């Protein structure tokens, strides 16, 4: 692990997120900035995959499913910067004829994406199905990963799949909850309190890990490695990852106003100036 490189990449992914959302004049920067360390850790340190030859079934590879599809900017940035498609394509985000739809879509065949998401609550079921197929295919060394918003846990389908995965011992699966405590109408406590999430998942027969510093890249890698060590032991694994919405930008952090709002030019410059300089190059904006 090259910590300097990973931190640098986190900073660049954040630059990408902010520039994409500003350029498109729409999108979801808050949750994307909050999940940056998770994506960088997952794609740079944890998952086994081959970005050069993308196949839908990903035979012999680990697979990731994004259930809370609105944080597509961070997903697209890490996919591009991990070699799935050209970095310059980030400039097409949310624009006409783009493969980078507002919410992830398999429709136009963007490498790295295996399911469309945006309507919340469906990703865990899909991930569980993929985990079952890995077992049937005897790809025992491969792990399925998924990410969900904390607000997304309001959806009933999530609990259908939580029940199923626990009862059926889906132990080649690591789900992560992006626990930032915010959703569109306010804090998760205001909208619909989640209660003791750890106890809830444990009572459904899941192994639960918690990481309070979800925006500390070392801690995120560490908890993902711990989670990997818990696979194959008869239980699905959950990581409750405490993150801060809008992390890295002072006027966005912890503020759910930035859930789905784009920064204007002045705000963009202010935000970018707060991020550490990187050794990467910004993607060029299209004309």
């Amino acid at each position, binding site marked *: 692990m090259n910590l300097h490189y990973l931190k640098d990449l986190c900073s660049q992914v954040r630059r990408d997120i902010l520039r994409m959302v500003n350029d498109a004049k729409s999108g979801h920067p808050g949750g994307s900035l909050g999940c940056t360390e998770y994506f960088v850790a997952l794609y740079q340190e944890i998952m086994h995959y081959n970005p050069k030859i993308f196949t839908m*079934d990903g035979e012999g590879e680990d697979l990731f499913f994004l259930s809370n599809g609105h944080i597509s900017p961070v997903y697209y940035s890490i996919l591009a910067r991990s070699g799935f498609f050209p970095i310059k394509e980030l400039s097409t985000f949310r624009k006409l004829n783009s493969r980078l739809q507002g919410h992830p*879509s398999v429709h136009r065949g963007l490498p790295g994406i295996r399911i469309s998401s945006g*309507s919340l609550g*469906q990703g865990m079921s899909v991930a569980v*199905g*993929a985990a079952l197929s890995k077992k*049937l295919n005897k790809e025992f060394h491969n792990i399925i990963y998924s990410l969900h918003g904390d607000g997304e846990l309001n959806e009933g*389908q999530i609990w*259908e799949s939580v029940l199923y995965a626990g009862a059926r011992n889906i132990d080649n699966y690591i789900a992560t909850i992006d626990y930032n405590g915010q959703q569109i109408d306010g804090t998760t406590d205001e909208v619909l309190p989640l209660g003791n999430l750890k106890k809830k998942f444990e009572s459904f027969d899941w192994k639960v890990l918690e990481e309070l510093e979800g925006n500390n890249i070392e801690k995120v890698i560490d908890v993902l490695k711990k989670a990997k060590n818990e696979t194959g032991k008869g239980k699905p694994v959950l990581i409750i990852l405490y993150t801060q919405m809008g992390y890295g930008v002072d006027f966005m952090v912890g503020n759910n106003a930035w859930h789905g709002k784009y920064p204007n030019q002045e705000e963009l410059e202010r935000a970018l100036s707060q991020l550490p300089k990187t050794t990467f190059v910004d993607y060029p904006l299209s004309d």
Partner: protein
Amino acid sequence: MKQYENKGLKETRAGFGQALTFLGKKNKRVVALCADLTSSLFMNQFSKEFPERFFQIGIAEANMIGIAAGLSIGKYIPFAGTFANFATSRVYDQIRQSIAYSYKNVKICASHSGLTLGEDGATHQSLEDIGMMKMLPGMTVINTCDYNQTYAATLAIAHYLGPVYLRFGRPAVANFTDENQMFEIGKAVLLTEGKDVTIVCTGHLVWEALEASKILYREEGIECEVINIHTIKPLDETSILKSVNKTKCVLTAEEHNYWGGLGESVARILTTKKCYVPQSLVAVNDVFGESGKPMELLKKYNIDCNSIINRIQILLKKKKN
């Protein structure tokens, strides 16, 4: 006029279950999922013979749709079975996003469709599912008429790459199609040739239409051309237009709401192809069903053999004017 023989009453859903078991032996990629209705869909045999490829999801249809999508990512061919109502309206968003928009090779297999579900009543009688499914881009919609055709369709969709909605019924109905029929997705089946009226029908109403055409010929010398539409989408426009251009009038018959059903699809073809002929739609008139015996319900909601006869008599008067 060609006559069809009722080779005995058989359940269409049994055709599904038995073909699925056959597929299980032939194709290791075929997997099956069910939401606590295994015996209702005749999936027991599959679950017994291939326990590792059968997934009992419990009463959680949304989860079933998602798991099916996930299994298809691992190159499996999932057949997800439940009642038509729970296979569609209950999980429409899941089908839309995780299957249709994601273009997943999932076969949604729906039994107990239409009024002939019978005594359970309106909560379980799906009269909207064809409309909902045909509106989804890329979705193939199949509605079979008897045991043999359901068997053949189940085998055929396993070889087709893409999402499919396969709809069939609950009661034992006349089994009259060929045992070893070719099932070609998107291809209409011309059952009888006639010059006076085209009957475009689907599902359980195909047999009612054949009975109606037999009576009309015997008593009034009316020659009906009966077309069995097992694939509602994509619809075999060529076969329908060819027949309607000959007979100059058409009646559609289906166990579904007027809105969104086969009749509307046929009307669209006729108008867009400038084939302006009288059309009569035999379908449920935008109401919910109720409890009753299957044949009592077909009669009460005016979609049985006699209703078809009456409507054709009116239609033929319109044609002459």
